[in-house]
């Protein structure tokens, strides 16, 4: 086992883009932690003259927005919001997707048909449009945003888990468990799930990136939690002065881009390290 793990880490650490992704994620996490330390008053405080360009006033490295709020404070606090929403929505979606996919794959028959029908319904409705409707229906808040994002993100994972289960079920170690009289739940949790874990981890890690993009889009439209300042919100507000003060939207936009890029790089690095043969290049 430890040899397997070592070769996994060796393969991952040889993958330069993936390592760069890890470093970027560390930087973003550092930003999220630094926010409340350096800007304990929060990102909403009006601290200076509005619409200062970056560097125009030494106190505001990234300048100020339309109302005179410090953009650096917004950037750091936004990192927190993006990571929190990205991770909690992914955890929720992974749970939903795994339970539904596992049940469909394990029980088959009408359970499978019912659950896959449900999955297809959710896959037919465009994810972002459904997320917009859900958030608008429940009033924008952290909870409703996480609910909406996880609600539209689970279907691909459910299909993946189901496919994994269908592939594992006829194998001997599972049949051995059946013969030993293991209960359904025990078979699923101790035999099947551990063997389906690798693809679940890979697609969940990539799901964080999609969740961050969805959140940014929602708060850009004005459907963000009104109590937290996210990158999408800063872009949405900065849009009004786009023609004269484009720097306001540039910085949070780049922040979204680099976060999503970093997560994608790590996700693909994980995939390549878990499945060395899939890398035919």
């Amino acid at each position: 086992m430890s040899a397997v793990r070592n070769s996994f880490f060796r393969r991952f650490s040889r993958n330069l883009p993936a390592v760069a992704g890890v470093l970027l994620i560390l930087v973003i996490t550092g930003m999220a932690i630094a926010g409340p330390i350096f800007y304990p008053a929060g990102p909403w405080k009006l601290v200076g003259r509005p619409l200062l360009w970056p560097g125009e006033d030494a106190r505001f490295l990234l300048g100020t927005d339309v109302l005179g709020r410090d953009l650096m404070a917004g950037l750091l606090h936004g990192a927190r919001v993006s990571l929190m929403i990205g991770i909690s929505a992914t955890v929720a979606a992974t749970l939903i997707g795994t339970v539904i996919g596992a049940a469909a794959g394990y029980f088959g028959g009408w359970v499978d048909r019912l659950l896959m029908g449900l999955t297809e319904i959710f896959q037919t409705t465009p994810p972002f449009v459904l997320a917009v409707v859900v958030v608008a229906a429940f009033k924008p808040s952290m909870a409703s945003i996480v609910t909406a994002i996880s609600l539209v993100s689970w279907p691909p994972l459910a299909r993946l888990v189901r496919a994994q289960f269908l592939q594992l079920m006829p194998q001997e170690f599972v049949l051995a468990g059946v013969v030993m009289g293991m209960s359904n739940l025990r078979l699923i949790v101790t035999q099947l799930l551990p063997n389906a874990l690798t693809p679940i981890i890979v697609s969940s890690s990539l799901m964080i990136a999609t969740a961050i993009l969805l959140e940014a889009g929602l708060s850009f439209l004005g459907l963000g939690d009104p109590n937290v300042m996210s990158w999408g919100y800063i872009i949405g507000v900065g849009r009004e002065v786009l023609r004269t003060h484009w720097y306001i939207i540039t910085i949070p936009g780049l922040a979204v881009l680099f976060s999503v890029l970093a997560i994608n790089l790590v996700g693909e690095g994980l995939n390549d390290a878990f499945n060395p043969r899939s890398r035919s290049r």
Partner: protein
Amino acid sequence: MSSNALRIGRFVARRLVQAVPILVGIAVINFLFVNMAPGDAADVLAGEAGAASPEFMADLRERYGLDQPMYVRFLVYLGKMMTFDLGYSFRFSRPVTELLLAHLWPTLLLMVTAILFAFIMGIVMGVIAARNVNRWPDYLISTGALIAYATPVFWLGLMMIVLFSVNMGILPSSGMETIGAGYTGWRRAADIGQHLIMPALVLGMYLTAFEVRLMRASMLEVGEQDFVTTARSKGLGENAIAYRHVLRNAMLPLVTMLGLQIGAMLGGSVLVETVFAWPGLGRLAYTAVFQRDINLLLGLLFMCSLMVIITNIVTEVAYRLIDPRISME
């Protein structure tokens, strides 16, 4: 030939029948979500009119059937949907179906242009990358695709407005045509085309990045198959192999994935149309959300799902026409 057309017809009909339960399921879920909203259209209408007496509110609710229990409203909704009567939009004072159809064409124009762009760019760049695998053109294209894949569409749209409309002044930043110019014929088409460039590029960017990566991987995979080795052993040149044998087979996954990506694209069009003030379904959705126009929202969700289903059927037929080995049955 005619038997082929018959087979396609039967295939499409079967797929349409299979889509009915899915559409009903979508209607159930949409209806539940939209009706979980605290406050209804009457609240919004009354709020806008200023102070409203309880009698006025009750009158509004009765007029729009909002005072009925939820299951009654659902059955009414479902029954009407079967005849494509999607109800009446309180805010626009027009039937929802009429509103949707009026906003459908701009969105279709935008999406078809974006898809064509993504296909052409995806194939060209994917082939260049695959034929130069692990050399600088491949690195350049793959890195570009990775970055495009991570860029928020609305942000890209805004940055393009800054660059091409504000700084360079060469492309219009909003709308579908120059208002009040009164162009006709080709002049009007050119005007619309000019307005279309930025939104279509932005909307197609994500799909382009996706297809570039898919095309590259697919070219590499097909390139390792036996029939390519056979072609090579016959003494065929690498160019002939790449374009006559590999390319045709490598394009198949692109068609399949289109059906899965169309939903993401419809979501993207809400953002892109909002950024560029494009008068399509996406911007209508944005308006409907903020005006709590429940009937319109339900209609939009239904319409979007319908578009996804139709695209899926079209791609399945296209797939089978390109690769006759896959049967229509």
